[in-house]
């Protein structure tokens, strides 16, 4: 009897959800289901939507054909604008959704702000474009704001590469034979904060050795009786490869443990000697805090080396006026870093910290295709 009731409930709920989805579909569903029937070029918004739906489907030919200014650039430039010229997060990202905000409109021209939400293997990133839509005869077409990646002129950039290789002890060595020593690392700052009903451990870790280290930080929250409440590690909120004397911030989130229950925190940094490269060098320039409503730290990354950096992980440490860490934020550059070419980045931070942030520090860790690090 109970089984029949459950089956009936599932059938009814499913039917209700199907009906709701059909009657009030979300924009993404519209795009996936029958884009041409709901978005067309008879209105400025319809033209912009139709274009972005083609982009979403990676139907580059159709998207390019719908542009008003395709005579200004070839289709390959259009594709590179959206997917990147070099392998980067964009190369494997897909347009998960978008929303259009009208800015102004007239009889033969309209302007929209398009928020494009891309999804990638390390999360989502946003791309904001201002789209101008013009009337050509009886059709509306988008004037695509092409963003051409600069081309680097052929040249030779001399770089003295520095890297460390490691020879570990062999299995046949006797027990007296020493192995290479693990790098010495030290926690130089630690600050637990109560946030959103959970506890967050913020801190900084220094590699005080002369060799590169692969580092992780594990934290255990201890109750008054000494028992462990929870254990977590820093996962991606840390720069895992630390060169000698390099400092990385770290953040460890305990979403279900209140700080009021915590009597002590046990921090366990660990380090392993790894082969690493000292290059490339990334400069962080034009940093500035952006006020409400979109609180963020933005700036530009400049690759000062000669090789293309495909993936860049960015970590920001925020300090109050006493120099104490109050937040650690991370993000990724969605485009590859070409030598000497600035790429914008933005790291969000909680709006309630806007008045408390006095200073900040940004570090990066990089990955280049075909290289170890």
């Amino acid at each position, binding site marked *: 009897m109970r089984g029949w009731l459950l089956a009936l409930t599932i059938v009814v709920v499913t039917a209700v959800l199907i009906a709701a989805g059909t009657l009030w579909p979300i924009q993404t569903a519209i795009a996936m289901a029958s884009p041409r029937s709901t978005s067309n070029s008879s209105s400025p918004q319809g033209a912009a939507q139709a274009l972005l739906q083609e982009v979403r489907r990676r139907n580059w030919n159709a998207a390019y054909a719908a542009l008003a200014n395709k005579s200004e650039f070839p289709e390959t430039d259009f594709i590179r604008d959206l997917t990147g010229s070099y392998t980067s997060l964009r190369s494997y990202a897909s347009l998960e959704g978008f929303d259009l905000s009208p800015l102004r409109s007239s009889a033969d021209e309209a302007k929209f702000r398009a928020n494009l939400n891309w999804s990638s293997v390390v999360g989502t990133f946003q791309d904001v474009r201002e789209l101008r839509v013009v009337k050509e005869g009886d059709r509306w077409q988008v004037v695509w704001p092409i963003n051409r990646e600069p081309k680097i002129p052929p040249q030779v950039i001399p770089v*003295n590469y*520095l890297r*460390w290789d490691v020879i570990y002890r062999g299995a046949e060595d*006797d*027990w*007296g034979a*020493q*192995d*290479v*020593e693990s790098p010495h690392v030290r926690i*130089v700052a630690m600050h637990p904060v109560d946030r959103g009903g959970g506890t967050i451990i913020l801190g900084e870790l*220094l590699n*005080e*050795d*002369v*060799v*590169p280290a692969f580092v992780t930080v594990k934290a255990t929250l201890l109750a008054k009786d000494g028992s462990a409440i929870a254990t977590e590690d820093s996962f991606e909120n840390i720069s895992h490869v630390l*060169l*000698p*004397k*390099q*400092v990385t911030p770290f953040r460890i989130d305990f979403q279900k443990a209140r700080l009021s229950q915590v009597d002590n925190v046990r921090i366990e940094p660990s380090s392993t000697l790894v082969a690493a490269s*000292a*290059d490339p*060098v*990334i*400069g*962080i*320039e*034009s*940093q*500035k*805090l952006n006020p409400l409503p979109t609180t963020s730290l933005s*700036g530009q990354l400049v690759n*000062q080396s000669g090789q293309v950096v495909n993936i860049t992980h960015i970590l920001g440490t925020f300090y109050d006026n006493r120099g104490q860490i109050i937040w650690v934020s991370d993000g990724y550059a969605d485009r590859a870093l070409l030598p000497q070419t600035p790429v914008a980045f933005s790291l969000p931070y909680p709006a309630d910290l806007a008045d408390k942030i*006095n*200073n*900040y*520090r*940004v*570090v990066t860790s990089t990955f280049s295709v075909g290289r170890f690090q």
Partner: protein
Amino acid sequence: MKHRITLALAGLMLMGMIMASAVQLAAADGEGLRIPKVVEAGSALSIPTSAAGKAVLYIVSPAQVLRRNVEPGEAIVIEPGALHNAGHYLALLISQGATDKAEFNVVAARQPASVNFLAKPSRLPVSRPDGISGVAYVFDVFRNLVLEPTPVSFQLSDSAGVTQTRSVATHNGVGWSKMNSAPKAGAAQFQVSVGSVAEKRVVQQVPGDPCNLKMSGQRSGQRMILETAPVRDCSGNAVSDGTIITFTQTYNGRSEATVDVPLKRDVARTEMPARDGAVISVATGVVLGNEIRVGAQR
């Protein structure tokens, strides 16, 4: 598999028989077996017997078991190298109707044949008093720990050719010493010698924290070209290449630009935007260097 089980059972039965005989005939302890109480590992041994008929001698220890057939009136000869594991032994001479028992110890040979050398750490900063420790375990040719006090010599030779030497005697087979790391960076040879036996380890003595970190800047259009002076520690050693030097540009107390640059050939070089009134500072790890105000150097 069946064969192995059979062998194991037979071995167990044999051990059981030997132990039972030993318990039963405790009263006869040592009456017919004259074995020295202490025997050096690997040495030959001749055991006279007074058995009237044929007998069997078992020598049992936790590490090995020997079996010898005994002819009437003949001494039992244990050839050199047969008794090689140091430890406590039980000898049983089993003949028809009688069992003799004796206990003795096999000790390590006096002559050291090998040494296991633990040197820690493999890498440490210069000028650390007692920063390097060496521990030597002395063994004979049969890998028995030599428990007799044995002189051990530790030698640490740094890259400048300066040698520290310490001599100690082992205690229960182990000798140890501590050494200072040299003021000059480089690979040091850490050697332990026991008689004619020597073992070597390499201890890397690395530069300490940078001292007097200084940079200079030169304006080039809209950019500042920044370069540190050769970075050295307080003993004058060049700080290891690859060490990260952080340049930070602040304006009105807030960070505007940052770059982490690895040392290459003792210096770190980078460029930053030149903004009048901005202050550029340099640091490495927790060591701070000087500051430059763009437009005027201080």
